[in-house]
């Protein structure tokens, strides 16, 4: 079956997304070693997005086989009602997803521990969010090694700690 038809027929689940997050991260590491910095950062952003989405959906008590796209509309609606101060954004917006994690934890009566909340803010909101957006695919960004290493370190934190967000 052609890939397009396969993906349409079998939309990605939470567990698919976890595998893909690791794959994109490893591919980004390969690109970094080859000094392909734009591509490296581009893939790291997707990894971060996927780990944050998984954290949000697990915090909504959704299981590993749930289809991700069917759960994103309800998450956005939940944020609209419970955290109207957070600007609505598309689901590639890392700052929105980080805010959703924090809000879900607050709603459950167990806010993120301060060290974790501080790291999430530092790594994602202040680190990755300003340096990554999907639109970067349409241009040569001319990123340097220092940019790619910064993105790698920030995404590595998420790779190691996404479970502690749940």
């Amino acid at each position, binding site marked *: 079956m052609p890939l397009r038809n396969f993906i349409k027929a079998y939309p990605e689940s939470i567990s698919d997304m976890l595998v893909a997050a690791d794959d994109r991260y490893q591919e980004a590491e390969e690109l970094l070693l080859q000094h392909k910095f734009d591509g490296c950062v581009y893939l790291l952003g997707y990894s971060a997005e996927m780990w944050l989405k998984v954290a949000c959906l697990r915090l909504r008590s959704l299981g590993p086989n749930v289809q991700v796209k069917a759960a994103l509309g*309800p998450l956005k609606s939940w944020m609209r009602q419970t955290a109207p101060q957070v600007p609505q954004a598309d*689901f590639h917006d890392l700052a929105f997803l980080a805010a959703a994690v924090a809000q879900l934890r607050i709603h459950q009566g167990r806010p993120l521990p301060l060290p974790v909340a501080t790291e999430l803010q530092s790594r994602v909101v202040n680190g990755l969010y300003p340096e990554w957006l999907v639109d970067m695919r349409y241009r040569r960004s001319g990123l340097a090694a220092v940019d790619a290493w910064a993105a790698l370190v920030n995404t590595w934190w998420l790779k190691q700690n996404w479970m502690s967000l749940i």
Partner: protein
Amino acid sequence: MPVRKFTPTRTLEQNQLVDRLAAEWQSVGSTASEPVIIEEPDSKGDVIHVYVVWTDWAQLDREKRGDVIMEAAERVKPMNEVLKITIAFGLTPDEADRFNLKWR
């Protein structure tokens, strides 16, 4: 007079789909063949999953279909019920059949 920019958050097509879905959701005893709205409750009777089968949103991606469902839900349901919905799955009839959803 100052010039202000208007930035629509949704397309006209999406707005129309929200209007039509909300109208159908509210119409008791509707005989329309579509959209078909299936509410799946949990063990406590709270609706947590909503499936909508509809030919008219074939061109809309699944993420946007979920947005349309939730915006319609916000119009027709009390907020405490909306907040319990965790899955909003928009399908065409062919997709619903492929996923073995009992909707007919």
